[in-house]
């Protein structure tokens, strides 16, 4: 049975007061809190196992290498990647996307080429592509969305005919909560022979991910948004792509042989992992994956959906409430503004009442421009949030709105 109280006990950080009020943590789309098992795993690594990996022949190095590679296997299994070497550890989604943009640039981008993103992307899935394509006087194609925050698939179909070299799409929008029909969009792109990158930053903690079923060419994610430590994330890529892609960074670990005249590179996935990796965080990520897997995932999803549904229903009763993002398929978060009230004012007051919500453009300025607003207040949920927290939050928003009107 799903018992939110026993889950909360595994997240000691939640049990504190801010400004003398109980903390309500609704900023999970920015980063989730970490369960004790994850914290202890990383601590244990530094207490007992810390060692640089892959190169040492001594006992500790071999143990650490084995643990790190097991973490890779666990992550591969979690997203149903066929091979563990198709998982590259990175610092997170942003680094994964920069890796892809840079590597593609050297692999196949030519003068005047196009790449495609959507109107609801996080800056991390926009700026690397934009900067890269601008260097080649190319064009960034943008899939438009409607006022509910739903992508226009007819327009997408038309844009595919312009033959972008790659398409990169958020699985779940960090601002609107929209779950995009990625499987369908991947199939459509593949009909034109175009590879697809899926930004899974917001989806790993909430949805079951199956990269083979989805048939994406690349899937990128951050550990810290899925109960794992900061500083670790990943990139899944199909072997055929990773094999032909040039390295992104150079240095230790990623080389095979080096002379002053020439360097040959290591095999997958090490070719893409230059320098000493964040081993402790990777082990924390593995533990986070196992933590998620240990839950009744259907029950967790139902609980998170109920939090969202309750928040939307109750908030809707507040005068002047305007939701930003009302897609039929949504996950994990509600974004809103109230008529006549600046989101920063609202965010400031509810912060003083103990609520950690995000206020601003959420690193998606084009989305704010589309809706003609300076920002939103965003409440994003995780498995440890409760219906009671949602209820007091709605009351706090109402009180703040009354103060500010």
């Amino acid at each position, binding site marked *: 049975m799903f018992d939110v109280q026993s889950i909360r006990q595994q997240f000691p950080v939640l049990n504190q007061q801010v*400004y003398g009020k109980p903390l309500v943590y609704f900023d999970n789309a920015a980063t989730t809190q970490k369960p004790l098992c994850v914290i202890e795993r990383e601590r244990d690594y530094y207490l007992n196992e810390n060692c640089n990996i892959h190169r040492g022949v001594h006992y500790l190095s071999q143990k650490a290498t084995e643990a790190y590679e097991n973490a890779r296997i666990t992550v591969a299994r979690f997203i149903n990647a066929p091979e563990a070497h198709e998982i590259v550890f990175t610092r997170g989604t942003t680094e994964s996307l920069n890796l892809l943009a840079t590597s593609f640039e050297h692999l196949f981008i030519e003068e005047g080429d196009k790449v495609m993103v959507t109107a609801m992307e996080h800056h991390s899935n926009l700026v690397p592509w934009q900067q890269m394509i601008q260097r080649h006087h190319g064009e960034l194609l943008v899939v438009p969305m409607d006022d509910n925050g739903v992508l226009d698939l007819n327009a997408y179909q038309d844009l595919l005919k312009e033959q972008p070299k790659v398409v990169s799409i958020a699985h779940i929008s960090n601002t609107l909560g929209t779950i995009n029909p990625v499987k369908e969009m991947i199939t459509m792109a593949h009909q034109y022979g175009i590879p697809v990158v899926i930004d899974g930053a917001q989806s790993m903690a909430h949805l079951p991910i199956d990269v083979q079923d989805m048939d994406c060419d690349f899937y990128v994610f951050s550990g810290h948004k899925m109960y794992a430590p900061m500083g670790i994330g990943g990139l899944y890529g199909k072997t055929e792509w990773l094999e032909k892609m040039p390295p992104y960074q150079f240095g230790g670990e990623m080389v095979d042989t080096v002379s002053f005249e020439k360097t040959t590179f290591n095999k997958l996935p090490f070719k893409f992992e230059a320098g000493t990796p964040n081993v402790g965080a990777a082990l924390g990520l593995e533990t986070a994956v196992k933590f998620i897997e240990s839950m009744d995932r259907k029950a967790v999803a139902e609980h998170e959906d109920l939090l969202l549904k309750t928040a939307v229903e109750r908030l809707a009763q507040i005068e002047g409430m305007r939701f930003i993002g009302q897609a039929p398929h949504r996950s994990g978060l509600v974004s809103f503004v109230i008529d006549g009230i*600046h989101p*920063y*004012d609202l965010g*400031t*007051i509810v912060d*003083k009442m103990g609520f950690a919500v995000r206020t601003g453009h959420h690193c998606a300025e084009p989305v704010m421009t589309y809706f003609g607003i*300076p920002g939103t207040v965003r409440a994003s949920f995780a498995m440890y949030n409760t219906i009671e927290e949602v209820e007091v939050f709605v009351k706090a928003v109402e009180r703040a709105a009354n103060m*500010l009107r």
Partner: protein
Amino acid sequence: MTIKEIQDSIVEDFSMFDDWMDRYAMLIEMGKECPIIDDQYRDEKHLINGCQSRVWLSAELKDGKIYFAADSDAVITKGIIYLLIKVFSGQTPSDILAADMSFLDEIGLKEHLSPTRSNGLLSMVKQMMLYAEAFKLQEVK
């Protein structure tokens, strides 16, 4: 009143409230009272950099004293700049430049604002000081 006297009375107003919600309520009320800036000053040139919400500030020199006006699209921000306007408006450039701003610490405003808002507050003070400096130079000429 001198700058110091105005600052002392603001410190006194703030000390009446223990709860930061009440202090915010006061800032919000001040924001609603803030005299609105003339439309011609609501442009890029009068925007203060470093604030997360938009803040416009104008200043004019009359009989050796500076008169400030401001506006913001966020009401708490407007309350904060109005607080500064109350302190500085109607004062001479030299007095403004010589002002001790430690009253902001006394009312606890800086520490209770988020770091981004606190930066915004400092930007506002800096902008007002820059006006004072410019007017002072003008006078010397």
